């Protein structure tokens, strides 16, 4: 089972233009901030929104191909969806919800319900068959929605923010269950999420979507090791600086100067881990060649670290210990020096 899609769709002033390919059995996570086009992409794949240009094909069968005048309606696509807030039909029991897709395909009521019961057993909800959606917990509702989608025997399963509707306490358990249940499905899986933890736990391959474009894709470890956008850098929690390399130095567009190890040429990214930044009240003396003056614009206290935001020619986030914060007596608006060792700075071409 393979997915081969180029999706171009304009909604108002927003334009989505992405290529997605998936190999058999793969789970893809589409990761992106709000407004990046995740839901448009999702609706195009499900057939709820036709594409303007491009082509969507599953196993070589076209689902949407404007040039060839092909558009397969959502009910005829081998694509099933688990929606963000599950959208279980409130007037039906859990069993009837799961049986819905089978009955819509013309299966007799009793046959559909027998199959639906098997699906509920698979997601450990056989004893909740007669419950209405309103009486199910978030995690249970998600499993009913998953069973309802899988019961239609899809070749592509779409999951829209599958864990966003859950509270933090249950999310880890539900994520683990979801992973287990997804592993039993042999079709393609595409998960739309804004949470890198979901992507990490559930997917083999991530696509980073920003402003309707794919900015990065690949194995999650590769993507996070070499962020190519502020969004990914923020996700991973590192400082991403863009500049131009010459004579062993990088100059940012704001005029900041960064000194890494080794030669750098042309447009590059530099990644500075927040933990490797030290803060000083006065210009430091010693071996570090990266010293950046800045003003404190934010102080976030966590349990055992404090994240300090600095504005300046080289805007940074530094992580220090609460003890260091007290020792330096740092306050909002204070001028400080941020220092990093060249060996802690990673660079790669833009």
């Amino acid at each position, binding site marked *: 089972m393979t997915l081969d899609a180029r999706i171009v769709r304009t909604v108002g002033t927003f334009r989505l233009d992405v290529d997605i390919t998936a190999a058999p059995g793969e789970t893809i996570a589409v990761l992106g901030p709000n407004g990046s086009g995740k839901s448009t992409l999702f609706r195009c794949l499900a057939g709820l929104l036709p594409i303007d240009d491009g082509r969507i094909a599953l196993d070589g069968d076209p689902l949407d191909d404007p040039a060839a005048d092909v558009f397969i309606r959502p*009910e005829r696509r081998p*694509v099933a969806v688990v929606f963000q807030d599950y959208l279980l039909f409130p007037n039906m029991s859990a069993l009837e919800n799961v049986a819905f897709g089978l009955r819509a395909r013309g299966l007799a009521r009793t046959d559909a319900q027998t199959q639906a019961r098997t699906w509920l057993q698979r997601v450990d909800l056989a004893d909740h068959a007669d419950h209405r959606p309103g009486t199910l917990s978030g995690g249970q509702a998600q499993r009913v929605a998953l069973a309802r989608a899988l019961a239609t025997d899809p070749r592509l399963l779409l999951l829209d923010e599958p864990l966003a509707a859950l509270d933090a306490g249950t999310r880890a358990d539900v994520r683990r269950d979801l992973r287990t249940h997804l592993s039993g499905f042999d079709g393609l899986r595409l998960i739309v999420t804004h949470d890198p933890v979901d992507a990490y736990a559930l997917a083999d391959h991530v696509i980073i979507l920003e402003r309707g474009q794919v900015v990065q894709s690949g194995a999650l470890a590769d993507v996070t090791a070499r962020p190519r956008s502020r969004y990914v850098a923020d996700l991973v929690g590192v400082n991403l600086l863009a500049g131009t390399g010459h004579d062993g130095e990088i100059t940012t567009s704001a005029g900041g100067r960064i000194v890494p190890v080794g030669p750098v040429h042309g447009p590059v990214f530099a990644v500075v881990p927040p933990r490797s930044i030290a803060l000083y009240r006065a210009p430091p003396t010693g071996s570090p060649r990266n010293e950046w003056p800045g003003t404190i614009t934010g102080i976030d206290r966590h349990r055992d670290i404090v994240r300090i935001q600095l504005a300046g020619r080289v805007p940074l986030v530094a992580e220090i210990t609460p003890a260091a914060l007290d020792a330096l007596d740092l306050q909002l608006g204070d001028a400080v020096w941020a220092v990093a060792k060249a060996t802690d700075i990673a660079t790669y071409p833009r």
Partner: protein
Amino acid sequence: MTETAPARPVAVRHRRVGQERLPVAAMILAGTAIAFFALPFLGLLWRAPWGDAWSILTSDSALTALRLSLWCSLWATGAAALFGVPLAWLLARVSFPGRGLVRALCTLSMVLPPVVAGVALFYALGRRGLVGQYLDRWFGFTLPFTTTGVIVAQTFVAMPFLVLTVESALRQLDTRFEDAARTLGASRWYVFRRVTLPAIRPGLIAGAVLAWARALGEFGATITFAGNFPGRTQTMPLAIYLTNEGNPDEAVVLSLVLIAVSFGVLVALRDRFLGGGHPPTT
């Protein structure tokens, strides 16, 4: 929901939720309005010939008119639902040029004097009417002065109530449930039957009740388009109007019967479907 209970000042601590008191002037005006609605019915009860009530009620003419009224108004409600739900769907979901005009046209009969509706129907569907002449010539089918004519006249004036109510219910519906149903393989018709219709049921019932009440009370369009033939087109309102000329006792009893039927239905459905303070569940 969690932020609607700020700390209350001590001075109003005794005022309990749901025990809102209106200013005295507003209470007097509201009381007058209630009396205004109640007094006419009290007048009927006061004037009713209680001794003869049973014999009038069970007389052939009264039973015939009542039966005809119920028969026609129920058929009119059914017709209003059959045509009105798809029309409401069109108005709520499909955007096309001139939609506002179409909506105005389809609800015009609600604000028109019913006699005007009757006259208009006559020139459209009457034996010499725009379309009626062909119905007559090709199919030998005439509507005016028939029971079917009564149903047509009632449907004409009653359907807008259903259309507007159902349209509003459709607009409030979360269409993502329909999207979900389609991704599960449901055809549009299946989605409508199993997802949309159950979700708009309260609106549909409210609309049907309003349309039925309008059809039951219909007078002007019926008498103009269908005439006043006992057993065929003489519904309760027509019978009441005509007996009131020579036999007021009978008119009063028939009126009370009509009131009892209508009031019974309104009470049975009360808050649940007629928006008595609860938002419709979608």
